[in-house]
């Protein structure tokens, strides 16, 4: 499995993501700068976390309008797997590749801590390495992770099993509606999530609960 990491000015967890992909797959991902209009032939495209364009205007709003995102949307339409983490999730929402919006945390403060996640749908290409309803540890680090969707949209994504991760055991750090931490598109090939599984994949991180997500996405598990 080949992967690519999208690079935009202001993203800052790209190095974490590159390291995680390399450690799990054994191969370094291709790096794609924001001005590229074509993407290499890969199985997984990742938009990492950070503060693209400083989060100015609105998180992810400027990044979503860069040429490379048009190419990402085309690949997503062809069924290529796309994963956006944190700012990457915000960018996917701004692109319209995923439904809903991320608002400022209910506390109005940036929050970096470990939370618990429930794997709400273990039947996706990203989550099949987990057991259904498994509770995993995962860190979060964001200022704008408060997921919101209109009642109708919410009903639809809940009904279709598009909610794949939920904050569990009272650890919702941002006020997200229905404790939503990560969702997929209707095709199941585009995932957006606020937590950072890339920061919990090896002993040095104090745990490896994030690893199965990468193993699933990189087809390391059946």
């Amino acid at each position, binding site marked *: 499995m080949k992967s690519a990491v999208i690079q935009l*000015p*202001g993203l*800052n*967890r790209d*190095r*974490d993501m590159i*390291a*995680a992909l390399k450690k799990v797959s054994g191969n370094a991902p291709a790096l794609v*700068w924001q001005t590229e209009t074509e993407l290499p032939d890969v199985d997984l495209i990742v938009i990492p976390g*950070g*503060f693209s*364009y*400083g*989060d*100015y205007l609105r998180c992810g709003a400027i990044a979503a309008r860069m040429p490379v995102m048009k190419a990402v949307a085309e690949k997503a339409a062809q069924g290529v797997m796309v994963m956006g983490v944190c700012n990457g999730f915000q960018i996917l929402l701004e692109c319209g590749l995923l439904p809903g919006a991320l608002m400022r945390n209910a506390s109005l*403060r*940036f*929050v*970096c*801590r470990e939370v618990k996640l429930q794997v709400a749908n273990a039947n996706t290409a990203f989550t099949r390495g987990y057991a259904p309803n498994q509770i995993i540890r995962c*860190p979060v*680090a964001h*200022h704008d992770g408060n997921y919101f969707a209109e009642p109708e949209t919410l009903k639809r994504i809940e009904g279709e099993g598009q909610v794949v991760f939920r904050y569990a055991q009272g650890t919702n750090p941002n006020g997200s509606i229905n404790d939503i931490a990560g969702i997929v598109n209707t095709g199941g090939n585009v995932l957006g999530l606020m937590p*950072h599984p*890339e*920061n919990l994949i090896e002993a*040095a*991180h104090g745990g490896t609960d994030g690893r199965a997500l990468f193993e699933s996405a990189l087809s390391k598990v059946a």
Partner: protein
Amino acid sequence: MNIPNTPRITDDLVAAHGLKPEEYQRILDLIGREPTFTELGIFSAMWNEHCSYKSSKKWLRTLPTEGPQVIQGPGENAGVVDIGDGQCVVFKMESHNHPSYIEPYQGAATGVGGILRDVFTMGARPIAAMNALRFGSPDHPKTRHLVAGVVAGIGGYGNSFGVPTVGGELNFDPRYNGNCLVNAFAAGLARTDAIFYSKAEGVGLPVVYLGAKTGRDGVGGATMASAEFDADIDEKRPTVQVGDPFTEKCLLEACLELMATGAVIAIQDMGAAGLTCSAVEMGAKGDLGIELDLDKVPVREERMSAYEMMLSESQERMLMVLRPEKETEAEAIFRKWGLDFAIVGRTTDDRRFRVLHQGEEMANLPIKELGDEAPEYDRPWVAPAAPAALDPSSIPETDIADALLKLVGSPDLSSRRWVWEQYDTLIQGNSLQIPGGDAGVVRVEGHPTKALAFSSDVNPRYCEADPYEGGKQAVAECWRNLTATGAEPLAATDNLNFGSPERPEIMGQFVRAIEGVGEACRTLGFPIVSGNVSLYNETLGEPILPTPTIAGVGLIPDWSRMARIGFAAEGEVILLAGAPEDWGTHLGQSAYLRDVHGRAEGPPPPVDLAHEKQVGDFVRGLIRTGMATAVHDCSDGGLAVAVAEMAIASGIGARIHPNGGNSAAVFFGEDQSRYVFTCTRQDVDKVLEKAREADVSLFVIGETGGSELKLGKAHAISVEDIKNTHEGWFPRYMQG
């Protein structure tokens, strides 16, 4: 606002620039004519306390700055220390006190931005940040606003830039009511063969301006930072700069990319006094002249005068001397990152600093005298009086358990979780220990086992009572915190925050504190490789507590043998190393005396530095054998608070059995050089034997287990209750 270039030089104008009449006379003697208005601004920027260290230089020279591990000591953008394998750690701490009091969010944010720039200017990628914060009394009307703004500003900048904040301190004291302290630390990792310096070399080479555009923000900032506050400080808001972490992140990537091409001869970030200070430093260090053409400087405001451009403190800017043949390549890198790149001048051979604007020469000054030959003072000082001894019988008996709960839930000793959860502590994926332990630890990327430990320490209460012992203690505690993780302390940076040096009693505090710092650094082999002095920290004549913050870096050769503070398991033996026969004796200036009895009295605990080293070396050695399963130093609040913190971090209880007394001094005394640690039952004899061999006092004081903490005869407290009390104060306070 537009400051024209043509006002007449009057006594009032000279005074408004923070220059004393004798300093102005020195300018007249030096250039043989009346300076232009722009020149006056340049002198004011270069000769103020903040940039010239004119009151402190004499004393700073006495600090030990060398050692086999030191690659670069003070005098550059940051200190550089060898960590083996062709790698080095580049670090410094710097204050942003005055701006943060005036405008807490931006003041603190740009403090972080400035220190990060100091580090990556030298070719290092920042890998860790810390901050040491001091605020006024919690019940002072401004304190909550300052805490909220400063913490948000530090997070806002550091998180966006992408550096993990792994440590720091935060304390309250009424003496900071009118003048908070924001000391920001950053460390970066570089290759020893790719360090970049500010010394310009070569004549006729292009001087390049990089980064963000120049505006009017911060004009005169360094001069503002070199004066005490008066009642009109709110009018100084326009002198505080505005930070843009996004541009800084781009600047980091562009600089590192450019440095890798071999195009950079010299580089200097624009910090205090912006274009003036960076250009003068580069030229003066290289014994060269610099000529700047301000028409070429990228600006974001119209009709800026030469004076304003030379004194602007707009953030996220760099100045560089470039290899001319690499110009096109260099420019392409900066354009890719959306940054400005402009050739604004050249190096010359005449050691003059020339500034041209709209065809006119606005300044023509001797560069050496502006830079490294600025004025220097030997200010009068008086030694501080020794504090009266504390009469132990004057302290009423207290319930030990109740006193412990009071201390762990006090403003100064309660958990700082509310603060550090607003900082990204995990970014870069290398954080091994985040705030809440003895030191932050970050593994060295690219190396299988090495890690770096970081700690920032000072006890201003001790320094106020006895600046010499307080200075020693700050260094010793930093060294001890690094040691408690298993790290070998390598070197430190100092951030010396004091009141007005023009007052002999403040100067006396400064001199004695430096003597203490120097003594401790020498004995512990812990040199000072960079630093910053912040004087005039006073408002309406009330000075802050003397606060010489020490931030240190240590090396852990194998992080799989690193210690943490949380108890590792139930049924382990708890030991106390380095303590006197009674475990604890010294209550003078202790947190217990202040927070339980409302008294700040007596001398601070003295530090026996040779003993400190002996105990620390023993504990570090033990950690490396793997036998010490949890380690924590004893500091504020003494033994009881140390044990409570170990219980909180693990959720495991403990019983402590004092061999003799159950007195407050045993549990809350702040005797120095002590560590609490645990080992398994089967290792305890081996551990005791090792202590005997090392001639270090070691007592078995109790065992871990259960869900309660029981201190001698005092009533047991559940760890849950201690934790809730410890975690509760800060969020409750901030909610108002």
